[in-house]
């Protein structure tokens, strides 16, 4: 029985690749064994550090983009203008230590949070603009805060209102009506501010071009609480009724009649509203997105307060526990098991709960690892999914071009003569038309008739159909050299079919060179795809690829202020193509030791 030699099995190959080569010490009487060509290749490859580094980096990227999206799925239709161009951070709910154990009032803004502690001091955390960092000062203690899109309001113990943050659209101009009276509740909304006075009147100021919140004059003086989303506001009255403050007829207008007169608390998401009645029941009306209408059964009859974010609700129950339901894209509807909670506050994608000792509990969106883009989408998940699309397009384009190139090159090289002439002219025609402009034209003409997802397949086919000539020429050259060898003559003499001779006898002899070429053109196809997408002629929004994430990033504002939008995709794409080329280069050297010098 033959002795088993190291390197002869697949496991050995893997071991060599990942653990390095086993250095065998030979005694003076031994000779180094003669190696098979494949083992020599493997050895040459594993000895070249740049090739191995390239291989490892590529494998890491490959595993990351194919496995991680399972855990970080991308919601393709997701857009949220309140989260746009947020820089990478994880501090949305990292409240200051001083606040913990002494929290009086907490509110979450779009990407930040504001809180007041028992000594009346305001704390802020999260991603703050320069204007937001200038906190208001007052001799009196602050008792209440409210955070909006990019501004915040505070209320001191004398009922005076303070505002800071974004000061455009007259947000900084607190109306005299408000400053003259004692205010009970302040509310910072989407570029709008609202104040409710002790006497029950509501005042609205801010960007009224964006949202108009009409307050019916006959109801002024009866309001007890107000809530708002980015399009309208709702308020409760002393009589326990819900009033919709909107000039338009919306789904919000259809307040269930049976709750009117019994409402004790109110909350509003982007598309729906919820009310708690005096018997502890929760009623949701309006839209049904993200399952906001699926109120957990165990909270009915026990709810005392409710709060809402962009698409989820959190309810405080009479036994001091909390429950959340609705939109769960950032785990904001996954409430932890808490007890002795006395107040809750939800906003956007965050939740805060304060227990009777003033300790704070949070759940929901902590921040974005790589920031967000101009539509408020998380760049990290887009980068992963986009990488998968980019790699898939590159791979399938290479397979298409490989098939065409190998078939055409083989026939052309083997048969020669007229076939060769014709096929090589064809290759010349395809090669003569510059790649990028032609691909752009094809994409523009075909792309206008198919869906966005169809475009992905279209790009694969276009790249595959346009990039085969160089491979065909390479295969042709190799086959030309191989067909004169004895084994081909022998095969012919045995009467083997010509197609079989080409693909079973000759091709395996030249396949290594072809594989190297395919590896290098894989990187090239990825580059072409991303160039096309970058120019806007490849895969378009809302699908993500590394190329189209960079679309529109040559703008000076994006370059300077939103660096995360181009730095991360650029790094991912570059790392991937560089590593493939390094590995491919090493493969070429390994196969042909003579080409080591190239």
């Amino acid at each position, binding site marked *: 029985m033959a002795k088993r030699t190291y390197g002869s099995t697949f496991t050995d190959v893997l071991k060599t690749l990942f653990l390095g080569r086993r250095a065998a010490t030979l005694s003076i009487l031994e000779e180094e064994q003669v190696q098979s060509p494949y083992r020599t290749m493997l050895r040459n490859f594993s000895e070249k550090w740049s090739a191995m580094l390239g291989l490892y980096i590529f494998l890491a990227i490959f595993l990351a983009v194919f496995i991680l999206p399972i855990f970080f799925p991308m919601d393709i239709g997701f857009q949220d203008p309140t989260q746009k161009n947020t820089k990478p951070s994880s501090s949305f709910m990292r409240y200051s230590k001083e606040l913990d154990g002494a929290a009086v009032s907490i509110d979450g803004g779009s990407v930040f949070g504001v809180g007041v502690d028992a000594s009346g001091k305001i704390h802020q955390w999260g991603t703050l603009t320069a204007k937001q960092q200038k906190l208001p000062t007052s001799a009196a203690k602050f008792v209440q805060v409210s955070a909006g899109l990019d501004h915040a309001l505070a209320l001191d113990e004398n009922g005076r209102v303070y505002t800071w943050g974004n000061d455009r659209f007259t947000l900084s101009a607190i109306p005299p009506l408000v400053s003259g009276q004692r205010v009970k509740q302040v509310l910072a909304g989407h570029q709008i501010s609202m104040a409710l006075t002790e006497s029950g009147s509501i005042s609205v100021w801010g960007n009224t071009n964006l949202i108009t919140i009409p307050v019916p004059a006959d109801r002024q003086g009866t309001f007890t609480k107000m809530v708002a989303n980015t399009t309208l506001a709702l308020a409760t009255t002393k009589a326990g009724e819900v009033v919709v403050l909107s000039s338009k007829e919306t789904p919000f207008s259809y307040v269930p009649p049976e709750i009117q007169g019994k409402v004790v608390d109110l909350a509003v998401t982007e598309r729906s509203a919820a009310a708690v009645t005096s018997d502890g029941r929760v009623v949701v009306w309006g839209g049904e997105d993200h399952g906001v209408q699926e109120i957990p059964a165990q909270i009915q009859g026990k709810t005392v307060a409710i709060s809402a974010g962009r698409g989820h609700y959190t309810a405080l129950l009479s036994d001091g526990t909390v429950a959340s339901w609705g939109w769960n894209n950032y785990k904001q509807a996954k409430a932890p098991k808490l007890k002795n909670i006395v107040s809750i506050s939800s906003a956007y994608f965050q939740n805060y709960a304060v227990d009777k000792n003033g300790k704070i509990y949070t759940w929901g969106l902590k921040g974005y690892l790589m920031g967000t883009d101009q539509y408020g989408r998380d760049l990290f998940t887009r980068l992963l999914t986009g990488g998968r699309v980019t790699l898939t397009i590159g791979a399938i384009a290479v397979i298409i071009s490989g098939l065409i190139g190998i078939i055409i090159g083989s026939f052309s090289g083997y048969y020669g003569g007229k076939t060769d002439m014709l096929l090589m002219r064809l290759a010349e025609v395809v090669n003569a038309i510059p*790649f990028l402009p032609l691909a752009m034209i094809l994409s523009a003409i075909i792309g206008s008739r198919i869906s966005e997802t169809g475009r992905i397949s279209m790009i694969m086919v276009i790249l595959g159909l346009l990039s085969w000539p160089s491979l065909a020429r390479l295969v042709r050259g190799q086959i030309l050299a191989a067909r004169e060898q004895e084994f081909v003559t022998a095969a012919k003499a045995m009467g083997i079919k010509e197609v079989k001779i080409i693909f079973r006898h000759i091709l395996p002899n030249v396949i290594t060179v072809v594989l190297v070429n395919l590896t290098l053109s894989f990187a090239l196809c990825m580059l072409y795809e991303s160039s096309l997408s970058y120019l806007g002629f490849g895969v378009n929004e809302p699908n993500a690829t590394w190329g189209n994430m960079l679309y529109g990033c040559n703008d000076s504002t994006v370059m300077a202020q939103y660096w995360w939008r181009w730095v991360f995709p650029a790094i991912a794409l570059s790392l991937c193509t560089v590593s493939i080329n390094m590995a491919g280069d090493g493969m070429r050297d390994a196969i042909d030791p003579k080409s080591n010098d190239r």
Partner: protein
Amino acid sequence: MFKYVLRRLVYIVVVFLVASVLLFALYKSVPGDPARMMLEGNKASMKPEEYEARYQDAVRRLGLDKPVVIQYFTWLFNTIKGDFGYSLTYKMPVRQMIGVPMKNTIMLNVWSLIPVFLITIPLGIATAVRRGSRFDNAVQVITIIGYSLPFFVIALLFIFLFAVKIPIFPISGVQTPALKGTPTRMFLDKLYHMALPLSVMVFTSLGGLTRYVRATMIEALRMDYIRTARAKGLTEKVVIYSHAFRNALIPFITIMTGWFISIFSGSVVIERTFLWNGMGKVIIDALNQQDFAVSLAMVMFYLILSLIGNLLMDLSYGLADPRVKLS
């Protein structure tokens, strides 16, 4: 020699014809009626009968009433004559429209040639001579990285470094808007705007070309005549620059021509990124505006360019190496 050129010319014509048929078929498959698009702007201001008359007139003028074959030949002859059709967006003949962009593109590309040559040839030779040294290995890795990086990533990086962080160059454009002055002043302004796209173009070309020069030089240095030259006692300088380099030129010409052609299409990305008003930007704008006549003209231009480039490349083999017999 003459026979060879003639045969190559016939090939070129055949390839050109086949490619032009393909492109024309592509052009015809575009949805939409070009005659209607031509009248799009003033549809509202016309009476129906007048519109109809103008429409028929446009159809006749564009030759849309004739059979497709006739249309193809008319188009082909016009293209060869240099009449590339009518731009629907710019409302003027394509030929008139592409004058300025063409000048800009050629200027950018020709200027980029000089630094590319000045850097890649000495660097390639130096690494080939010192093959296997630490210097060589470092250059090898850097050049792989250089040619693997996408054009636009390098462009974005350059913009970030030299136009945003250290604002010494303009971020985009060809000329300062509304600048009036002496021709020298205008020229300097243009050069100033060209600095960034030019550096990116040079930078992206370095990797591949350096590697290629190195490879051909190594091949040449291995030849027997080099050994002979050394044995004769010639100085290393003469051996490398006179004996080896001249022989390394042949494959180098191939890549040089290919690279020169590709830079016209490769500059699509750079021109788009720097909003450089060149041919690449024209083709993108044309496609975005559904102005397919212009984009087709561009591709025909590239096609002719690359075919002639290939011919010149073959001919220059003979010039670089008298042993090459053209047959």
